[in-house]
Each structure stands twice: as C-alpha cells, then as structure tokens.
C-alpha cells in the first residue's frame, strides 16, 4: 500500500463514518416524526381489541351455524338444478308438495 492509496482509504473510511452518523441522525428524526402516530395507533388498537374479539366470537358462532349444514344444502340445490336442466320454476306451491 503506497501513501496515496492509504490516504484515499483513510479519507474514504472517515467520510463513510461521517455519513453513517448523519444517516443515523436522519433515521432518528424520521422515527421521531412518526412516533406520535404510532402511539395513537397503539391506543386505538387497544380500544378496538374488545370489539375485534367480539367479531372473532361472532365469526365462530356463524361458522358453527352455517358449516357444514349450508354447504350441503347449497350442493343439493345445485344437483337438483342440474337434474332439472336449470329450470326450477318460481317457488314451491302447495300443489308441488308431495
């Protein structure tokens, strides 16, 4: 390594370290800017948690009611429609009942 190369590397390392710390300051500034919004989001999420929990419970209850009964009903309807070549009439009248 000659003197010139060493000087360039030395300068380069120095400038890179300087840039690193400038970027670190910039990063801290950006995070400081968004911090109040993150805090507000966290507070909202805390308030929403009980509602979200209730939605999850309702989802589970809906599934309990609909599955597997509804798919079976829908599937049978589709089979009947195919057997009737798509023409199902417009509803059940008393004379249709067997």
């Amino acid at each position, binding site marked *: 390594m000659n003197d010139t190369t060493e000087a360039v590397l030395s300068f380069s390392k120095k400038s890179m370290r300087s840039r690193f710390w400038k970027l670190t300051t910039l990063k801290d500034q950006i995070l400081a800017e968004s911090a109040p919004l993150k805090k507000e989001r966290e507070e909202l999420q805390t308030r929403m948690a009980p509602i979200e929990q209730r939605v999850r419970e309702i*989802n589970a209850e*809906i*599934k309990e009611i*609909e*599955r597997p009964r*509804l*798919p079976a009903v*829908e*599937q049978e*309807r*589709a089979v009947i*429609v*195919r057997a009737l070549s*798509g*023409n*199902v*009439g*417009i*509803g059940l009248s008393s004379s249709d009942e067997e």
Partner: protein
Amino acid sequence: MATYNKHQQFVEDVAEKVHDLGSDTLTVALTTNANAPVATNSILSDLTEISYTNLSSRAITTTSSAHTTGTYKLTLTDLVLSASGAVATFRMVEIYNDTPASPLNPLIGWYDHGSDVTLASGETYTLDFDDANGFIQIA
C-alpha cells in the same frame, strides 16, 4: 367453470389484512360484456353492475378455508342463482368480499361466461366452483 381472472389489488389486500376469507361473506356481482371488469379495478364501486331485480341471493357459502402442508385453499359451495322473473342480461361474474367496510367491498376476481346470459322466470344460473382446486390457493 370459465377461466378465473384476478384483480391485481387483491393480492395486496390479502397481505394487508383487508380479507378474512375464512369468515367474510363473498358475494357475486354481475356485469355486461360492455362493462366487463378489468384487472386494475379494486372495489365494487369501480364496476357497473346489472339490475338484480328478480334474482335470488348472491351470497356465496364458504365450504372450507384451510391450508394443507402450507398451501392455503378456499373452497366455495356451488351457488344457484334463480330468477323469479326476467333478469337483466349479464356475461361477467365477479366475486367480491361483501364484509370489509374499508376498503368497501374489495374485488377478488371474475369469470367471463363467454356469451350473454339471460334468465327468464324459473330459470337458474349455477356457479360451479372447483371442489378439487378450490376457488383460490395461496402458496
């Protein structure tokens, strides 16, 4: 069933908590060929739907929503749309999520029936979803 076409926004919406495909109510929207959906549409209000007068419920029943060895599959039950009177002509069958409020009614994908469909009173249109491969898979 006809070829499935994906809305581009859907993949982002899946990754960003818009959809709960295991619980939300997926629903059918119908359009004419002139108002066909395009891949860049993202919510239902982007589409021009037909009038649903005389048509039965368009809500789809979910059969299952689960993964097998890391590949997620959403299976939907065949849906029979029945007409209690003449129904407006349609060709495109859109599937959207009716549950989210924000964004409202995000689109998922659509099928092109290939020709105009007209339903008279007593007639039906069946959406025959793929049982083996499901409606969609995510790997």
